[in-house]
């Protein structure tokens, strides 16, 4: 399993995926830093108060995190979908699977190697962007490690889904299903929030169930919570305690522990199901 994980990391380095991600990190963090610096400088020149600027920066940071979570999800899908599927389609897998190793070792080894790269990208890019934002604006979110951990968790959910689907379906189909699933999951999360704010219990429970079916949106709430300044939470609670739940860029509390445990279990179950099927598949 470790051999396959090592091979996967080597592949992502040799195929320049890692270098492209590193370059994208530098470029995007540079743009974030420049954009926030301009925003803060111009706002101060315009006479805005420090508190308003900090709240503004925190909200921009959450929007940037949302964009980054989407980029990360796409990256996970692009890495995960061909990890097993493309080797089966090209024939590379035949010589490997004829060796004395379990097919589960190939599948889990591919997951481990891919997960290492995706998590490293999420952590490096996420923390660097937050650090640069803090440097240029003076605002630091309350819990950057928590936000980045949930960001990485969300990417791992997508990676697990695409890799599992890629061992059953053609890579392109696996990637497409995962990306659509990610989008639908986010929409369902928004629906759950709106349904809750409007008191539509039936719709709320369906939307909530979809969060458990694909936990990416639930984990996104953890990212927001880690980036949201406590002051915003307090103001929101005081002004519109019900309606604010409908905002997809607002979270008053982190995802509950049972949900986090379920997310880990969900990945294990999806990988387990893919392994079960892959072990029995005729090649």
């Amino acid at each position, binding site marked *: 399993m470790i051999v396959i994980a090592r091979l996967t990391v080597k592949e992502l380095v040799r195929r320049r995926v890692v270098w492209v991600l590193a370059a994208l990190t530098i470029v995007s963090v540079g743009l974030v830093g420049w954009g926030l610096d301009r925003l803060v400088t111009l706002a101060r020149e315009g006479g805005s108060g420090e508190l308003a600027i900090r709240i503004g920066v925190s909200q921009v940071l959450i929007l940037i995190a949302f964009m980054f979570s989407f980029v990360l999800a796409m990256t996970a899908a692009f890495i995960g979908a061909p990890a097993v599927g493309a080797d089966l389609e090209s024939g*590379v897998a035949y010589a490997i699977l004829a060796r*004395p190793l379990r097919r589960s070792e190939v599948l889990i080894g591919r997951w481990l190697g891919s997960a290492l790269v995706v998590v490293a990208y999420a952590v490096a890019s996420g923390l660097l962007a937050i650090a640069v934002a803090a440097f240029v604006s003076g605002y630091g979110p309350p819990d950057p490690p928590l936000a980045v951990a949930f960001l990485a968790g969300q990417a791992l959910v997508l990676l697990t889904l695409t890799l599992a689907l890629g061992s059953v379906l053609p890579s392109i189909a696996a990637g497409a299903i995962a990306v659509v699933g990610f989008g639908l999951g986010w929409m369902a999360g928004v629906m759950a929030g709106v349904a809750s704010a409007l008191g539509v219990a039936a719709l709320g429970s369906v939307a909530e169930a979809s969060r458990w079916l694909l936990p990416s949106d639930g984990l996104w709430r953890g990212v927001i919570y880690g980036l949201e300044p406590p002051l915003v939470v307090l103001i929101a609670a005081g002004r519109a305690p019900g309606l604010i739940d409908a905002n997809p860029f607002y979270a008053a509390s982190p995802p509950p522990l049972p949900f986090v445990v379920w997310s880990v279990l969900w990945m294990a179950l999806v990988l387990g199901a893919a392994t079960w099927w892959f072990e029995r598949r*005729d090649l």
Partner: protein
Amino acid sequence: MSNPAIELDGVVKRYGRTTALAGLSLAVGRGELVGLLGPNGAGKTTTIKLILGLARPTGGSGRVLGAPLGDRGARSRIGYLPELFRYQPWLHAREVLALHAELARIPVASRRRAVDEALDRVGLTERADDRVSGFSKGMQQRLGLGVALLGDPELILLDEPTSALDPLGRTDVRAIVRAARDRGATVILNSHLLTEVERVCDRVVILHQGRTIAAGPLDEVVAADGVRVRVTGLDDTGRAIAAAFGPAEVDGEWLTVRALSPGRIPDLVAAFVAAGGRVHGVEPSGGSLEARFIELLAEPSSDRP
């Protein structure tokens, strides 16, 4: 055959409604070099996949190197060159072999030597540190052969090992395969290039529609020859004479007698002449694996041994 390398007993493999193997029985002794032949779709590649555990039989049973089909432990003693040979294009040739040496559980201390030996055997030492992406198809097939030979496995399964090679490469492969057999390995050579098989194999197994239609030492399979004779002036007597020598068919003036050894052809011609026939032409059929192969495929299934 005691302790055979491969033993398949009534193996059936179906993919949906398609039957790839329809009760295949096969035994290959240790140290044999066997050619697995058959037209496209005969079940050759399926047979190899079942031996390796890449696919599971629908019915029947089998053992490979003393273990059940698909046994993981046995796979550490098997070398395999797939028909669809593709290796990680972003690795160097040496890295591909090192990866397979690790996966094949070759002890760490002897891995480097095993890799160097494999590179040398297939003539890739000079290109060992080049990326596979820059290799021609023939070179990739050589690399695949090196992967299959890595660590001197007990059983070597080669699925169309010369399909991408030039005549020089094919000669090399013949030498490599013979050398493997000489050091005691069992080799299964799956090919539809009959001349290749004819030149190296001790025994052939011919598959057709998922069944064995002929098997045995090469000279025995090929010896089941026949003859076509163009004879006039005999009418039905000619057919009766021919039938006395073996299974006979009439096609106009041509009489074909199958399963007739070359030594009996003069006797057949003499019998025609003695009965008053005029012999215009004699064409011994067979004499080569290819001719025998074509004959066997043309036979109705009830006539097969």
